[in-house]
């Protein structure tokens, strides 16, 4: 097990876990999950292949109501 930071909160992941797996574990199967990993946006098409590494800082965002 290793630890990543998701929106500033610690989250345990296992070696080989991908962004897609993390989103699933967080219950975010919504149409639009927006992900940034260590300051770089992650393309939606690559969620299933980008593997997490210990110490990664992730931002998970999404569209919300707004003007």
């Amino acid at each position, binding site marked *: 097990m290793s630890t990543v930071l998701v929106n500033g909160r610690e989250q345990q992941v296992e070696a080989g876990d991908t962004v897609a797996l993390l989103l699933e574990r967080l219950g975010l199967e919504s149409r639009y999950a927006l*992900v940034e990993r260590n300051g770089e946006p992650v393309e939606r098409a690559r969620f299933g292949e980008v593997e997490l590494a210990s110490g990664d800082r992730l931002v998970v965002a999404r569209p919300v109501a707004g*003007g």
Partner: protein
Amino acid sequence: MQDTLTIAGRSFGSRLILGTGKYESFANMRDAVVASGAEMVTVAVRRVDFDAPGEDITTFVPEDVLLLPNTSGCETADEAVRTARLARAGGLPEWIKLEVIPDSRYLLPDPVETLKAAKILVDDGFTVLPYMLPDPVLAKKLEEAGCATVMPLAAPIGSGRGLKLRDAIRIMVEEAEVPVVVDAGLGAPSQAAEAMELGADAVLVNTAIARAEDPVKMARAFRLGVEAGRAARLAGLIEEQEAAMPSSPVGGTV
């Protein structure tokens, strides 16, 4: 000939764009969008709160309506660019309502940072719709930078005060070669009509509809206001006169 609005090569039958903020529920927002006839709505981008994830707003937006993510909450060009790239990577359209707002009392946009972000985002392939103070010189610079529209505010966001900056917007309309979208501050359908009569290509409305007693009825009212104002613009308004001009014959009275 059908009167369509074209932004960056995409045609819209409606000249009313809606913001999705401040509705009592997403269902109410969806009904208002449908009643308004809008074909484009804005959404904001925020971090997910894992303790209260809530519903996915995109599932409440009708399929054929274009989602326009905004960069609200961004105070610098760098923050706006970051937000736009995050939205695009995650699958939102490559269109961005660019707002860079460092001031929380009047929510006025920073022209220097907005222009800086616009240049970066246009170069990066985005269709950029910048929110701005109605400054005709800045509008030209944003246009030259490749922005798809210019979006001057009528009055501060959410204020409902109407076309307070009317004269500057009129000059922008006269000089702009991209669509002018009056965004923010409109409080009533009559004000939306006034903006369209002035020559705006479209208006963007949020608070005046979302916070009305009946948002769905108000959405329809704005639709009619925008249509009336546009029709009047195309029909050609009379010129104002200082004194009265009789409508009935002056001679031959009994």
